[in-house]
């Protein structure tokens, strides 16, 4: 068991985070848009389109945010 301050494991942990960070925001954005389309407004595909765009922005923002926490070396 390595110490949690070990830069190798801390770095590996950070690296594995980024990908799902992007994906999860896309899922949530698309899902919210789809739900608005189907249950709230019946607004055709536009809710999902807007939701996916929002999700992409939020995903990049989350990835950026988690990259800011990288240890500076």
């Amino acid at each position: 068991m390595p110490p949690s301050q070990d830069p190798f494991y801390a770095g590996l942990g950070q690296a594995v985070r980024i990908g799902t960070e992007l994906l999860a925001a896309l899922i949530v954005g698309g899902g919210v848009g789809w739900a608005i389309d189907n249950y709230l407004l019946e607004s055709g595909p536009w809710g999902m389109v807007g939701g996916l765009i929002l999700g992409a922005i939020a995903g990049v923002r989350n990835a950026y945010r988690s990259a800011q926490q990288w240890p500076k070396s």
Partner: protein
Amino acid sequence: MEENPLHPFELQNYIPISLGGLDISINKAVIMMWVVVTLVTLLMVMASSARKLVPGKLQSLAEILVDFIRGIIMDTMGKDGMRFFPLIATLFLFILFCNLLGLVPGTYTVTSQIVVTAVFAITVYGLSLVLGLVLHGIKFLPGILIPPGTPWWLVPLMVPIEFVSQVARPVSLAVRLFANMTAGHTILGVLFGLTISGGLLIGWLPFAFSVAMNGLELGIAFIQAYIFTVLTCVYLGDAFHLHGSEDHAH
């Protein structure tokens, strides 16, 4: 040999139990969870029963684990976070042992069920929301939805973006653990299937790969438990220190 590589993830009910329409049947995953809980409890209780100044093998193991979790909490949350030590240690040990025991052939990886990981993720995120509301009051909600320094005309754009990025937190927490475990075990299943269908002539090649994959999976089992714990600490820490948490972390 046409075995579906996702077949090991299907659960058969051993003892069907239904409680008021709710299916609480006992299956392999439930039994594995009991095994994990028993093992972790036994390890910790036995390790701490004879507390010596010079620790034995078991006590050293427990001390390393506890020190490791303590290090994560101190790194991400600081001293305030130590009151969440029981929760975070439980989460870490449970996920770690689920991941590791799932690699033993014939057992079941509980964390490859998205129900399990989603419950953990929602609990953690819900706790961080409740904690933030208790500590900062109702101004916690605009606090997490509007980043500091946002000009007023950007607020209508930033609120939906921040909302999505907040909801994405538990989703990414749950999906990451579930997807890594499922993918790893599917690859192992495919490789073993190839070994059997390849026969002696070529079957040794996928078998050698499956041995290497098992080593990689050991690493992934640990890393995923570690990441889940670190992110739990980060999310709880964000609720503690509303804003400014980014520059305090390191």
